């Protein structure tokens, strides 16, 4: 890369963050290599598997497809921002209760995708869950237990 490094400023997990790096460096690499946030996983590097999903300005995106220059001035949220230090989020609890995480590599992305769905639709039916999680590949579960996890989370969220 012969291009010049540039300064990028964004809000990451509620903290103002400034880094100097190459404009085309992928967001996932900045998160994992420069900022040591390794909860975001790389499965395919081409936006197919969803393991690297993060929120940018509230939208779920695959961070392997985002050059860091596009992140300048945005609000980014990753799996590290999902639970407080003391308490798991209800979606995370539901994934543990229902065996929704097996090997765990797709899980951070799967949980963010579930959250994106439940934010816009607190009571999705099974088909809606399938449609909204179709961009997140899981090789372990056959998805049954993930659907169960999202359904339980939906119940917990609506109860509140």
């Amino acid at each position, binding site marked *: 890369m012969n291009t010049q490094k540039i300064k990028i400023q964004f809000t990451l997990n509620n903290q103002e963050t400034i880094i100097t790096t190459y404009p085309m460096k992928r967001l996932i690499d900045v998160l994992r290599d420069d900022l040591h946030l390794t909860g975001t996983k*790389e499965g395919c590097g081409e936006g197919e598997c969803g393991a690297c999903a993060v929120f940018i300005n509230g939208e779920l995106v695959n961070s392997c497809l985002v050059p860091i220059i596009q992140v300048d001035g945005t609000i980014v949220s990753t799996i590290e921002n999902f639970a407080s230090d003391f308490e798991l989020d209800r979606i995370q609890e539901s994934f543990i209760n229902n065996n929704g995480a097996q090997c765990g590599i797709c899980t951070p992305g799967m949980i963010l995708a579930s959250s994106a769905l439940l934010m816009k639709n607190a009571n999705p039916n099974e088909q809606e869950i*399938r449609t909204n999680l179709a961009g997140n590949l899981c090789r372990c579960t056959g998805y049954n237990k*993930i659907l169960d996890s999202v359904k339980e989370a939906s119940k917990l969220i609506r109860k509140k």
Partner: protein
Amino acid sequence: MKKFSNLRRVEGKSKVTGTALFIDDLNFPDMLHGITVRSPVARGILKKIHFDPSINWNDFVIVTAKDIPGQNIIHLIKEDWPFLVGERINHKGEAIVLLAHHDQQKLSEASTKISFEIETLPAIFTIDDSINKKEIIWGDDNCFKKYYINKGDIDLAFKDAFHVFEQTYRTLHQEQLYIEPQGAIAAYNELEGITVWGSLQCPYYVHGALTNLFNFSNEKVRIIQSETGGAFGGKEDYPSMIAGHAALLAYKAKKPVKLIYKRAEDLQVTTKRHPSQTTIKTAVDEGGKLLAMDIAFLLDGGAYATLSEVVLSRGTLHAAGPYFCENIRIKSKVMATNSPPNGAFRGFGAPQSIFAMERHLDNVARSIGITPEKIRTINFIKRGQTTATNQVLDEKLDFDSLLSTTLSKLKKDTKKSKHKHIKSGIGIATFMHGAGFTGSGEKYLASVAGIEAMDDGKIKILCASTEMGQGRNTIFAQVVSETLGIDPHHILTPAPDTLEAPNSGPTVASRTSMIVGKLLEHAANGLRNTLLAAGLIPEKYTEAKFIQALKIYKKKYGTLKSFHQYKQPEHIKWDDQTYQGDAYPTFAWACYGAQVSVNTLTYEIKVDNFVATQEVGRVLNRKLAEGQIEGGIAQGIGFAIFEKAIFKDGVMINNSFTNYIMPTALDLPRIHVYFKEWNKDYGPGGAKGIGELPLDGSGPAVINAVADALNICPDTIPYLPEDLMNDMEFLK
């Protein structure tokens, strides 16, 4: 005894918070990155390696076969698989040069500046070319291994049979497609030798491979499993290769080296499910009773022997299905081709031979005018009858009940489509899967597992079995806590580290819960008996009393460990030479059913409903067990109708998630799982192995349903819409 069958995944919290540390999440000070430079041709003789002078190579750590201090062979079954090409190249993508550098960008640029002078030799890529010796590429005849099983007299039985039916079935490569690509980190210093962290199933396979690679004593090689993001067999043997490469670089660099495969590289060079070709000839009487089976089962092994002979063995031993027949002959061979070696993938040869048998029975039923249910019911093997190897099955065995459960759940959901161009169909498959190693395998392994009391009153599990999502941590914590009568949160389940974990064998073959879990049950009983003998606990004790006793013992005597070694029960008899006897200590038994709808305009096949009924002994932990079955079925449906690896020059060229299609949440139906718990004589609390079972029957159930929907006879999987289109065009 208190049961903890609802125990939640013990490492669940670290996984849902993203804090579980997978191999690429680990970093060490002054760590270099590694890259592999590979052969561009499928077969040839390496004459020279050119390093482009435009690069300052002094900046890089460079390793070739000449740098190997010990043996350039991955120690496995047959010693033929080199870490790095010395002279002969046997498949495209074979590793020739390793490079390491701090800067990944510079590394990937430099890797393109290495070229090879190679005398190209003709290569072969098919089972037929290999059998016909178009080129001899391995040994005298290209054959890694063959088996022959004979029961009764098939020639006599075929002579006067009412109906003889013969057909050939094929299955193509399937990729394990763990979502975490393969990777390893190695470090070296003179005092401790080599340490490797890796995403792997079998720490002691890697340990054996590396002691040979460096000619080091056992103490000078240490293998530590990192959190493993799926494996499914794909991380059984290949991690020895990648760990060896990282270790060679670290040894030369005197710095830690991380080697992580990109997805495209992983798909192109790591092992896959063996392609198969099975020809079955059967004779039946008027009612459909099987009089003789003649089975020829062939596998494409790729360029090196690796695990092929054991994959072939399992496929061979499952080839006759769960049917009783007095006359059976099975001949099998695994052949060499110039592709990366094929290897372990959940099911281990059985999904291939079972696909053939289950399709074949439907074909025979159709040709004599009876239903698929009927031909199975007539031939189901029963308690007291013998398998192809003359193993007498002595446990409750009621396939009629498995079949009727599946059919009743399946038909309830069946609706006729309103659209004329949508055709729906139902298919079933009945099958078994042998739990644990084949034949005398477990005897030779003689696995050891144990537990250790810690100063704070916790119990630590010591064994080489790995967690890869299947639930090893949770099941072991559950088994030990149930045996000791204490809460599971007292049990620690660290990932194996060969420095302290004894060799409890590889994490394969549906053996971890059943075999290693049982060893832990014994070890826990041993530890309790020690405390009893020391007078520290009474026969009946409270948890608090037990923990207190542990602490007192520790203070008084220093350490408290309990190990148990596997001993094969006397009644298990197996002859490796004749392939006769008890092939497996027990089997899981199953009947799966699928309902599909096929769009005859777009040729799309959709699985609308899937029912899986199985007998697996005690279900230790329902949600974990269901997760195993559901996930395995998803992979089996992928095997049947989604996942096609396209090969050119012996390597996969659709080597990306975009082009190799695994099922998404939208592609699958809800999978309905039913357990029967008849036979509780084997593993801890009576559990049998279940991990591989679901891969065996799901593919044929789906394809039998497609055949039923359209009145066609698909004989090759994966069966994609374009294959269906061709078949339907042909029928027009």
